[in-house]
C-alpha cells in the first residue's frame, strides 16, 4: 500500500477540496476548494505516466542508458493548468460582482433568485 502513495495523496486532496465546497458558507472558501480539486486532478494525470527508474523525456545532456518517462500526460497537464487558472479568475470576478450587489459574501444571505 505504501508504494501507491501518490494515488493516496490524490484521494486525500479530493476529500479536502470536497469538504471545503460542501460545508463552508463563505464564497471565497468555496472557490479555494474548487482550486484544490483541480490541483489534485493534475497530480493524478502526471502520476499515471511514470515508469519506474525513468528520467525526464529530454535529450539534451541526458545520462546514458536510462528509460524515459511518458511525455503525453505532461503535455495535457499543461493545458489543464492554464484552463484551471482561467476558471479561477472568472469565479473570483463574479464573487466581486456579488459583493457589489448584495453587500456580503455569506452564501446563506444571497437569496435573490428564490424570491
Amino acid at each position, binding site marked *: 500500500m505504501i508504494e501507491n502513495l501518490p494515488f493516496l495523496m490524490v484521494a486525500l486532496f479530493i476529500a479536502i477540496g470536497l469538504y471545503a465546497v460542501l460545508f463552508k458558507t463563505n464564497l471565497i472558501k468555496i472557490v479555494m476548494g474548487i482550486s484544490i480539486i483541480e490541483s489534485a486532478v493534475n497530480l493524478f494525470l502526471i502520476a499515471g505516466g511514470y515508469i519506474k527508474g525513468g528520467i525526464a523525456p529530454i535529450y*539534451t545532456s541526458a545520462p546514458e542508458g536510462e528509460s524515459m518517462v511518458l511525455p503525453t500526460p505532461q503535455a495535457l497537464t499543461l493545458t489543464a493548468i*492554464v484552463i484551471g487558472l482561467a476558471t479561477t479568475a472568472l469565479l473570483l470576478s463574479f464573487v466581486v460582482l456579488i459583493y457589489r450587489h448584495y453587500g456580503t459574501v455569506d452564501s446563506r444571505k444571497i437569496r435573490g433568485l428564490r424570491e
Partner: protein
Amino acid sequence: MNLEGPMTKIVRVFSNAVFAFALIFGFYVVLHGHLTPGGGFQGGAIMASAVALLLIAYGADRIGKGLKKGTLSSMESLGLLGFILLAIAGIASAMNVVFGNFLLDNSLGIFSEVPPTGVNPGYLNTAGTLPWMSLFVGLEVLAGLSLIVFNMAGGLPKEVKSSRGGEVK
C-alpha cells in the same frame, strides 16, 4: 499602513532589480523551449509574475500612466493571430497538413537544422516552427495574465453603494 498607494522605498528599490532579472530569465525560458524544460506557457507566466511584482510595489495608479491597457490588449491579439497564421501556413507549403513543420529542412528560415539522434548538447539552430510558436504563445500569456492582475488591482471604486439600498463601506 497604506494599502492603496506605493510601498516604502526599500521595497521599490529591490523590486526594480528583481523585475529586470525576472524579465530576462522568462525570455530565456521561452526562447530555449525546444532544448530545456520550459516553452511558451511557462516563460510567459514568469514574465507576468515580474509585471505583477512591479504592480504591487508601485500601486495601480502610477503604473496605469505608463503601461496602458490598450497596448497590452494589442499584444495579446497579436500573439494569438500569429499562432493561428503559423498553423494555417503549414497547408500552403510543401506538407499538406495543418501544423506542418515547414521550416525544418529549408535554407530560408533561421531555425532549420535537424539535431543528431540520441544524447547531445543542445543546438539552438534546430526545430523549425517550434521556437516561433513558443514566442507568440509567450507574448499572449504575458499580456493576458498582466491584464487580469491589472484589472483586479483597479478594484472597487471608492464609494460602493449597494444596489439593494444602503451603503457597503
